[in-house]
């Protein structure tokens, strides 16, 4: 067993080989993702994030280099591509468009069924997955197409969780949801990770969510790995992030402006909670007990 959940070793990939539309998606990427934490991946559109994700569960094969899950190369005997798909559960963007079954139960059970599990085991996993994403039991026999957009999204995510993947990979899990739905989905994922202590990887464009939920952050730029560090450390590099079309959390900008206006605030405030505990003492006259 390796100390890393996922390792990319010198991975390169190009699309459209042999056509005039050749495009380099990844260029010699070396990346080690730690076990048991939430890692975020950010990058501009076309920076290679999606390619990176699809390599984690064996959907794409690197042209050069190799990808290892828990120290085993994908495609080797110990980690076949099929096993990789079950080890690293990948939730695509807008996963609700992949629902197809008659009932919520059947749709969530599709993955476990493909794993060849017994019916009791499947039923147990479906129930567990539904609890993780906050769906109530009485939706089990409802058609997934009768649900609301947010509920459909939960069903689709539960479909992956029911496979009990050691690694959960999510591509923009909250895209297109309202603020309440966003917070709920991210909250579910956060709690799921805490309870199962599994490895979670999230791609998102929302720096606010990244600051709030991820421990480490990977920054991709034009197919290359630009930064990989603690989320807090990455967000200190405001100018670098700006130069590649990314940004720091909104609250950090507010804090910066306040600092410029003369308030004695420190750098490195990235979430609303941090901002509150920094601001309240100042507003109460500096006694520090709000």
């Amino acid at each position, binding site marked *: 067993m390796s100390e890393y959940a996922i390792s990319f070793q010198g991975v390169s990939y190009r699309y459209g080989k042999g056509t005039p539309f050749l495009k380099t998606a990844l260029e010699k990427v070396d990346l080690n993702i730690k076990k048991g934490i939430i890692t975020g991946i950010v990058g501009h559109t076309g920076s290679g994030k999606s390619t990176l994700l699809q390599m984690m569960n064996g*959907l794409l094969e690197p042209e050069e280099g190799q990808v290892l899950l828990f120290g085993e190369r994908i495609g080797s005997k110990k980690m076949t591509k099929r096993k990789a798909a079950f080890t690293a559960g990948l939730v695509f963007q807008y996963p609700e468009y992949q629902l197809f079954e008659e009932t919520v139960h059947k749709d969530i059970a599709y993955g476990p069924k*493909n794993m060849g599990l017994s019916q009791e085991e499947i039923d147990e996993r479906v129930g567990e997955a539904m609890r993780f994403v906050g769906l109530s039991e009485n939706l089990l026999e409802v058609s997934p197409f009768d649900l609301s957009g947010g509920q459909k999204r939960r069903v689709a995510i539960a479909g992956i969780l029911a496979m009990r993947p050691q690694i959960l990979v999510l591509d923009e899990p909250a895209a297109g949801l309202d603020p309440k739905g966003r917070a709920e989905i991210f909250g579910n994922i956060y709690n799921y990770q805490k309870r199962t202590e599994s490895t979670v990887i999230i791609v998102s464009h929302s720096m606010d969510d990244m600051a709030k939920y991820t421990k480490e952050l990977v920054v991709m730029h034009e197919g290359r790995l630009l930064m990989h560090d603690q989320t807090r450390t990455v967000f200190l590099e405001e100018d670098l992030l700006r130069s590649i079309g990314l940004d720091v959390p909104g609250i950090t900008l507010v804090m910066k402006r306040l600092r410029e206006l003369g308030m004695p605030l420190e750098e490195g405030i990235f979430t609303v909670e941090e901002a509150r505990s920094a601001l309240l003492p100042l507003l109460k006259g500096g006694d520090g007990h709000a």
Partner: protein
Amino acid sequence: MLKDVTLGQFFPGNSILHRLDPRIKILTAVLLIVVVFLAKNLLGYGLLILLTLLLVAVSGIPVKTIFKSIKPLIFIILLTAAMNLFFTGGENVLVDERWSFIHLKITAEGILSGVKMALRILLLIVDSGVVLTYTTSPIDLTDGIERLLSPFAKIGLPVHTFAMMMSLALRFVPTLIEETDKIMSAQKSRGADFSSGNLISRVKALIPILIPLLISSFRRADELALAMECRCYHGGKGRTKMKELHLKATDILFLLFIALFIGVAFLPGLHCSLLGITSFDFLI
């Protein structure tokens, strides 16, 4: 994997063929197809092959691409040729059924008609591809069809609707391919297996792809209809075009050239008298 589909694909370019009026190209393609099936003797075929090679050279479409478009049809071509080879009766028997191990006789006429059939299909594919689909953008193509069919609108045929449907269908082919790819990847991530098991289990494995695809097609159709209505689309009545088609001198010249070529290629009487030969038996 699905991205390899080249059927009816357009290759942008700036050759004479690319710049021709789509109506002329459609007419030319129809003419060529008819002529390919009417050509009788080897001289006719020779000239048609010459014309096809000329068109390919002018179009600037890589020969590799053209071969690629023929490849999926190789089996049909060979089968047709074989059928003609064995089942064409004739007097000049080359291999008697007694000597042939499958008890079929081969005649000189059979060989000739087999070769002719194979040539016909090949010319058909290459001509229609080079003249029409490879060098004409889908929008131009439907525009051309609409204009050519416009006389029928007078007797109540919904020509505009037909053309609009066609251009919408063509427009969404790449979208659907992309969508299929995406759904396949997603279901593979849930352990779907499309390539093993018997026929029934393989067909069953397609359900998780087809249902989401069907649903998203309906959704897209709904959204598209709404978007078109928002822009006050109400059918073809009084609708003007941003790009009007106008015939240019080159269009007329091209059509004349093709007509001339065809005249020579397949009016036997014409080249008989031109070449001063009275009997064409040696060309059959």
